[in-house]
Every structure is written in C-alpha cells, then in structure tokens.
C-alpha cells in the first residue's frame, strides 16, 4: 500500500520579496487590441473569456489598436491627461505637507490615476460613485470641485467641510457624485447597488458606480453586492481595482491566485471584464461600455482594473519591508501618464513642450490651492473647528444627553 502524503496548508506568496525581482507572468497579459469587444447587450455568461483575458487598447508604441479603440476626441484625451497629471501633482504636494505635519495622514494613488480619471470622464452628471480612499481622481477630474476645499479637509482646518470629524482623504461630495468614503472596507460596494436600485425604483436614468480594492473583495459585502446587483439587474458598475497589494498582503492572499477577480462576476451572472487599468483609452472604453449596459436596463458589469500601487498603502506604511523597492519600474503595464502622453504625441495631439507647460501650470494651480487652504490653518497650527461641533450631527436634532455632555466638556 502506498503511503499518503500528509496534508499541507497552502499560504500564497508573491514571486519576489525585497532584494529580488518580481516575475509578473502571473498577470497573464493579452496583447493590445487582441481581446474582442462584444455588443453591450451580450449575455453575462458570454463574457467569460473577457474575465480571464485583458482588454488593452494602447500598444507599447502608444498606438490605439483593436475593437476597444474608439474614435475618442483628442480634446477629451488631453483633458484626461491633464487630470491625471493634476492628480499626481496634488498627491505629491500633499505627501510633503503630511511630512511637514500639516495633516495626520495621506493616501496617494500613484500609478493608478488612469482608472478614476478615465472612469469619471465616462460617466454622466448625476451618476453616483461609491469610492474607496484611492479614487481622488474622480474628484480631481472634475472642474467643479475646488482643490483648496479638498485640502481644507486634508489639513483638518477651520474650513474643513467634514468639520474635523473624518480622516483627511475620506471626502464626501454629493454634488459631484462622490459618496462619503468609509474607512470600513467594502461597505460602499453594496451601498452602490442600493443606490442603483433606488434609481431604477424611481424610473430615473442615473447609474451608480461602486469601487473596491482587490484585498477587500474578500469581505462579505463584495459577494453580497454581486448577488443583489444580479438579482435586481441594478444599474451599477462594479469596479475592482486590483493594484496587487492590500497593505502588505499580495493579491493572492485575497484570492487572486490562479484566477481573476473579474471571474467572480461571471459566476454570479454578471457581465465581467478584465481591463488594463494603466491604459487610459481602455479604461474609458470599458467604462463607457459598462455605463451603456447599466443605463439600458441590461444589468450590472464587473470590471477588474489591473494596475499597480506604486506608492505605499498610506503615509503610515513602508512597502520596502515586504516587496521589491523597484517593483513598479518592472510592472509590465507601465505608467498611465507616460502611456497616454506617448499616444497623444503619436497622433499629433500633444507635444513635449505642451506637456512641460501643462506640468508647470498645474503645479502652480495646486500650489495656489494649497496656499489658499493654509490660510485657514492646518493640523500643525491647531487652527481647527470648535470642539463644540463634535456633538453636532450625531442625530439630526441633538438629543438631551449630548447637550449635557457638551456642557460637561464646557464648550
């Protein structure tokens, strides 16, 4: 009789830790232009191949190719490029401000700018995003959100629109279609489905867009959202930003090994796409496709955006402890800003001089916004909202016990 092997627990590992080089072949990339584009009314089950491949438009030479390459207006692409640059400049300046102790904490989206920015430009006014803390690009892509106001929240100063109650990056902009960011992961994903259901209940035309990271897909709210979205054919786009890392855990710990996050959708009866998240044109085209499905009562779409978290999880994190320090430079999908810039130059809609000028102009805009925001204080100088406001807004009307407690504090 042959002896059986004893059981072994499998704990996934990334291919490289600090001091080594990551083998990115696990990403199973498709070539630009290779993946088909089905009609928007395609049955969910027929998208299975799309959930395991990778929709890409831009090739390595910056050319747009294949069925997902649409006649995108160069002006929109220029706008997208500027918004991505603005987002990166904003992040860089805020990181420095955090180091200067002007805010408690910051989270950048370095390397992921294309996803939020291109998606924002694919939505319509009135649509509602339910973002995570790394979708500041949804706000910075818009012209109607004041950067200085965002910074007032980051600085927790006397003009903080969240009145000092919420962490710096957890914005809330109902008027800009941006739901209040929660620090509890995944909760917003099912709420997005509820918002979409409400829009359908009221016979509206607006759609919801829910956001989650690869790590948080392990939460129950992710799976619940897929079920409810499918059951009620909710007008919602379900975005999974797979940036490979959830703080220190590689995406395989969230269940990405040997499969994809997009594949979760197909099994739930949801049309699913896996898309190059660093390819502005692919993000815009896939977002448009999903939005058209949602708006046409054709049901939800799950999109896995493959990207790379180029920076630390937050200012409290040090990724050099758990992954190769130069990992991003080897990431095969590159830098979204450099890729769109190359494309625009290739089609003659942008020049190096224009780029440098835009960079200077945006840096000046962000610096001016920071100067304006700092007029109202920062965490460093303690110029903040009154402690009396701490007791407001717990309920619509302040109950007696909170009045007593405010009195006890003496404010």
């Amino acid at each position: 009789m042959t002896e059986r092997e004893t059981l072994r627990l499998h704990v996934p590992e990334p291919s490289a830790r600090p001091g080594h080089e990551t083998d990115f072949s696990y990403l199973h990339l498709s070539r630009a232009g290779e993946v088909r584009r089905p009609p928007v009314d395609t049955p969910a089950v027929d998208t299975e191949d799309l959930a395991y491949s990778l929709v890409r438009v831009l090739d390595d030479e910056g050319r747009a190719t294949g069925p997902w390459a649409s006649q995108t207006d160069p002006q929109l692409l220029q706008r997208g490029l500027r918004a991505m640059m603005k987002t990166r400049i904003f992040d860089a300046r805020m990181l420095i401000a955090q180091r200067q102790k002007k805010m408690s904490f910051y989270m950048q989206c370095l390397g992921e700018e294309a996803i939020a920015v291109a998606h924002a430009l694919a939505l319509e006014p009135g649509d509602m995003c339910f973002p995570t803390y790394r979708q500041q690009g949804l706000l910075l892509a818009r012209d109607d959100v004041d950067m200085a106001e965002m910074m007032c929240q980051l600085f927790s100063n006397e003009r903080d629109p969240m009145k000092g109650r919420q962490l710096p990056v957890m914005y809330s902009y109902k008027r800009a279609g941006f739901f209040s960011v929660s620090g509890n992961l995944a909760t917003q994903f099912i709420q997005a489905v509820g918002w979409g259901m409400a829009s359908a209940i009221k016979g509206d035309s607006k759609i919801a867009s829910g956001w989650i990271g690869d790590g948080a897909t392990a939460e129950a709210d992710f799976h619940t959202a897929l079920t409810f979205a499918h059951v009620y054919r909710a007008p919602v786009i379900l975005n999974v930003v797979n940036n490979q890392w959830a703080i220190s855990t590689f995406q395989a710990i969230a269940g990405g090994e040997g499969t994809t996050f997009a594949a979760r959708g197909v099994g739930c009866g949801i049309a699913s796409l896996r898309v190059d998240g660093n390819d502005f044109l692919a993000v815009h085209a896939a977002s448009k496709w999903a939005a058209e499905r949602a708006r046409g009562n054709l049901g939800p779409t799950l999109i896995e955006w493959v990207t790379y978290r180029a920076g630390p999880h937050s200012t409290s994190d040090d990724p050099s402890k758990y992954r190769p320090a130069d990992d991003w430079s080897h990431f095969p999908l590159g830098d979204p800003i450099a890729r769109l810039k190359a494309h625009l130059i290739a089609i003659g809609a942008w020049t190096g001089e224009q780029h440098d000028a835009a960079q200077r102009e945006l840096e000046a805009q962000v610096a001016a916004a920071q100067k304006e925001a700092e007029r109202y204080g920062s965490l460093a100088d303690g110029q903040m909202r009154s402690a009396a406001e701490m007791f407001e807004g717990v309920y619509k009307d302040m109950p007696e016990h909170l009045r007593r407690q405010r009195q006890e504090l003496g404010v």
Partner: protein
Amino acid sequence: MNMNRDIETGATAMNAGRTPMTMIQALRSAMDVMLERDSNVVVFGQDVGYFGGVFRCTEGLQKKYGKSRVFDAPISEGGIVGTAVGMGAYGLRAVVEIQFADYFYPASDQIVSEAARLRYRSAGDFTAPITIRMPCGGGIYGGQTHSQSPEALFTHVCGLRTVMPSNPYDAKGLLIAAIECDDPVIFLEPKRLYNGPFDGHHDKPVVPWSKHPMGEVPEGYYTVALESASVFRRGKDLTVITYGAMVFVAEAAARETGIDAEIIDLRSIWPLDLATLVNSVKKTGRCVVVHEATRTSGFGAELVALVQEHCFYHLEAPIERVTGWDTPYPHAQEWAYFPGPERVAAGFKRAMTT
C-alpha cells in the same frame, strides 16, 4: 418629529375612527399609510414581498403598491441594510425587515459603521433615513436563534435610535414616526405581543388585542413621538422602568402583589425620555428596572446608572434589576429563563423591604 410632551401619551391622533388591530395589523397599517403618503418609502426583506413576511406584517402590501416598492430580498442581512443605506443616499426611505433580531449580526458593519455614522462623517452631506424592523424576545419556543433581545447592542451605538413598542397603538404611531425620522431607527417588535398583551403567564390563554383598549388603533396617519415614554400605570409605591413585553409582566406583578407600582414604558429606549422616569422615581423613591435581555451590560445597567445619577438623594432603597439570565436563550427551559411575574414580583418585594 413631534416632541410635544404636553400630550401625555406623546400621541397625536388625527383620525378619530379606531379599529381593533393586532400589533401585526397595526404595523402593517403603519407601512400602508406611509407607502401611500410618501412615494419614496420602500419596504423589503426576506419573505416580505409576495408572501407578506413570516409574521405576516407586510401581507398584501406588494399587491397594493407593486413589486418595485415592496419586494423580497436575498437571505443577506448585510445586503438588506447595505442596499437600504445606498437607497437612503439616493433619497428613498427604506423600511427593511430582519426576519428575527437574532439574525441582524451579519448587518452589524452596515448598521454600526455606516447607517449610524453617515450623517456625522459626511457632515450632513449624506444621511441614512432608514427603519430596520426586527421581531425580538422569547416565549415562542424559538431557542437561542429566535428569541434574543439585542437592544443594548444598538443603544451603545451613537447615531442610532432604538425603539420598542408594547402595544398596537404605540406600534403604529412609533413606526410612522420612525419612517419619517431622518435618523436610522432600530425598530424592535416583541413578537410575543404580536397577538395579545402577554403578561408572562405562559400557562394561561392570552387575551387577544381585540379585547384590550390598546388594540384600538386609528386607521389613518398619526404618530407617537420618539423620545417620549408613557406612564403605563400610575402608582405610588415604586417605579418600574421597562419596555416591550415586560410592561405587561410588570403590570401582572403589580396586580398580584398588591404593590402600587408606577410602570414607565420607555417606548424609545435610546435616546430616551429621561424626565418622565426621573420624575417618577423622585416621586416614589424606589425603582425596579426590568428587561428580558441578559443582565450584564444590558440596557438596565444604563438605566440604573441614570437613576442613581439623577435621583440618588430621593432613593429609599437600592435599585433592583430583574432580567433574563446571562445565558443564551434556552429552548426547553425557556420559562425558567424568561423573567416572568414571579421574578418581577420578587424584585418589587426586595425594593419595598429596605
């Protein structure tokens, strides 16, 4: 919200025509009235659509208002409350049913971290005007998964309102007030009271609501204000602070001991009507806190603390607590667990002997 304390019951009846209703019918009537009045009200949960709920509270509502306003949900409490929060962000007022209070735990994150704090964390940009109904309490041989009274888990959460009616009249008026309220409301329904004022004598038949004055319910719109307690029974010997099914158990104990207890029915457990209970304890000088839930860190502990904080120099005896035991709700031994009239009577006597 009507905060008019001049009206002793806190109720404002705008429709004089009253009909005998069970608590189930009264709750259904509240949802019916609000579905009719406000096109932003939707009702959903497990089994609540076509079938009308396992306790029949939503029977007929889907037929009357259509499937897009009254519908069945997957078995996912987290999903039910999570979608309700999203609907609230859109502008709807969702009234959702958790089939048993014992099942709310998977929705904890959505209730505690989301619904309760959304107004606060977004500085009023978004709110969660949702009502979460859930049958609670034992007495139906439901064992540990169909009998719990988890109110203290909610009262500990800032931003929530926790309500528990004890009779059909209050149930309808409070549910309408809860649906109209812009804060999230946990609406606990003592299931043993659905069909009559059960007083803890499980070996005796229960009087139906049709034979009880509190089963007379206006057909139309009225509210019972949140944060208003009612003096359920006037008395001078001691004050009982309680809510839900224990109101009638306390009444039986008063009747059977001859102790003239003043029974305060909180109705809104938190935030509560502090003045009503403080005034009563200052008058009687003695206090017994009664609830069905487990004792340790139960809401009774908060009530005892509030009474000693506000009435210490008026107290003539230590405050008594009569509660369920600190065990899971047992199945076969449920009546040994339930704090029935005898245990409440013993609490009264202890409070009177010092």
